[in-house]
């Protein structure tokens, strides 16, 4: 088989073997509906109770504060719409940032159409929100602040504890999208003062289509999915038992090998950054130099466009992503890259390489060797490049 170097761990991850092994019995041996009282059902119920305990422990929450969902996007939608509709008698103002994931941004935009008001905080060149601006944005009718823990494109980590303190001091609910942070940053929801937090399994070597929302005890929000009495009557639908079990196993593995995982990712990340900087002229690292996810590398490469870069890399077996509009067929390049002040050209020429547990030193060396000639070839074709 052709060499394949996967460097898009922030997009999704393969399952770890232990995760799959944990899931398999729940497909057709221990497959009962957890709501059923007979043996088959109780086996499933025990499995999800156990999974809930593991996830809770991994963020220092209580088990009855964890609610399983169908993924990170559902968690974000539930948190934001749930708080909005559930607290509209108190106010209709929400604060978020310009660099949130679309699951947050488009939800907020929807709520604007439905009569809510939203302040989108800008960020600095590194992608950090300004705490002073946040404070000033809070109004008497503000009901929610939603700021992501770490950004999926540029990897920047926000000052979550400080943000939570501001929110708590004004009695405004604080939600954070920790889909990228969970498993890559140690999170203690109690110590940080978080009210709601979204997480997703498929970013941490667990299955797609499973996530969770942490809801601090006492936080009032509407349901997003009504129906059966699952999840303590707060999120209906027959539980995805294998998905939930796999999510918990993935979280368990992540936390067992936490320090090792961080060390591995950080060292490969720094090696990749240094190697590319050395070999390629006119490239710029996006995001914060140190307050960044351990596996995130994001460069803007001048004079060339991201999609053609990705295609060329795919031809040599390297899988990664770009913030260029051309990769998605959308009108504008990444809102995150534009928000940190990049020009359209630089945003179009962005390349995100995200490292994971299965990435090796050779993978990094392979990229450091393969990328420069590809960049050079595309630059030779570019009308913007005058050497």
């Amino acid at each position, binding site marked *: 088989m052709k060499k394949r170097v996967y460097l898009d761990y922030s997009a999704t991850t393969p399952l770890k073997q232990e995760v799959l092994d944990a899931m398999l019995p729940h497909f057709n041996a221990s497959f009962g509906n957890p709501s059923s009282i007979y043996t088959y059902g109780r086996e499933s119920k025990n499995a999800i109770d156990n999974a809930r305990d593991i996830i809770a422990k991994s963020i220092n929450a209580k088990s009855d504060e964890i609610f399983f969902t169908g993924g990170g996007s559902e968690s974000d939608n539930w948190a934001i719409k749930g708080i909005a509709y559930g607290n509209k008698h108190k106010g209709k103002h929400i604060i978020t940032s310009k660099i949130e994931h679309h699951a947050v941004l488009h939800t907020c935009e929807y709520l604007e159409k439905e009569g809510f008001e939203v302040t989108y905080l800008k960020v600095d060149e590194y992608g950090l929100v300004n705490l002073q601006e946040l404070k000033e944005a809070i109004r008497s009718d503000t009901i929610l602040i939603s700021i992501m823990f770490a950004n999926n494109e540029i990897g920047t980590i926000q000052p979550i504890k400080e943000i939570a303190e501001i929110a708590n001091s004004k009695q405004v609910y604080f939600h954070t999208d920790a889909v990228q942070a969970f498993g890559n940053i140690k999170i203690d929801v109690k110590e940080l003062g978080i009210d709601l937090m979204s997480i997703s399994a498929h970013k941490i070597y667990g299955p797609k289509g499973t996530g969770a929302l942490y809801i601090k005890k006492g936080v009032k929000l509407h349901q997003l999915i009504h129906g059966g009495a699952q999840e303590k009557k707060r999120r209906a639908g027959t539980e995805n038992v294998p998905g939930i079990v796999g999510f918990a196993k993935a979280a368990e593995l992540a936390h067992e090998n936490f320090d090792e995982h961080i060390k591995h990712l950080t060292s490969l990340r720094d090696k990749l950054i240094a190697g590319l900087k050395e070999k390629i002229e006119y490239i710029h690292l996006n995001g914060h130099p140190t307050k960044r996810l351990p596996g995130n590398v994001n460069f803007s490469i001048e004079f060339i466009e991201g*999609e053609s870069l990705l295609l060329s890399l795919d031809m040599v077996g390297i899988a990664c992503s770009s913030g260029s*509009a051309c*990769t998605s067929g959308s009108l504008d390049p990444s809102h995150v890259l534009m928000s940190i002040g990049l020009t*359209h*050209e630089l945003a179009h020429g962005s390349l995100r390489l995200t490292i994971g547990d299965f990435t090796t030193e050779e993978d990094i060396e392979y990229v450091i060797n393969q990328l420069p000639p590809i960049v050079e070839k595309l630059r030779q*074709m*570019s*009308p913007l490049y005058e050497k």
Partner: protein
Amino acid sequence: MYSDKVMEHFMNPRNVGEIENPDAVGQVGNPKCGDIMKMYLRIENDVITDVKFKTFGCGSAIATSSMATEMIKGKTVQEALNLSNKAVAEALDGLPPVKMHCSVLAEQAVKSAIYDYAKKNNKQYEGLEGFDPNEEHDHHHHGDEE
């Protein structure tokens, strides 16, 4: 996503480069939109004897540039003007709907270069009426959006 033909032209684009002292040059697109196409023509006796391009853009932009240059080389100026984006796309075994605008760009680049030639040489060609190379084209209007 892309046909084999698109990928083949993308990986081995024909006629990349510049022509020194060209008889005509055209440039369309906008780096804001992520695409710029520049086309150089050598024209002798109303026949395009050489053509080169430089493109900043996606795989489809590069492949359509390459295919368009192949399709007009050796043709008369008028024949080149008649080249439609659909013909370029078809010659590439089709393009994804969201990428059709890149083929429009190739058509426009050819037109733009010929416009330059016509102006310089005070010539008239059918199909150039009303063409304005500096006009902003809303070529990012995609078919699959709702």
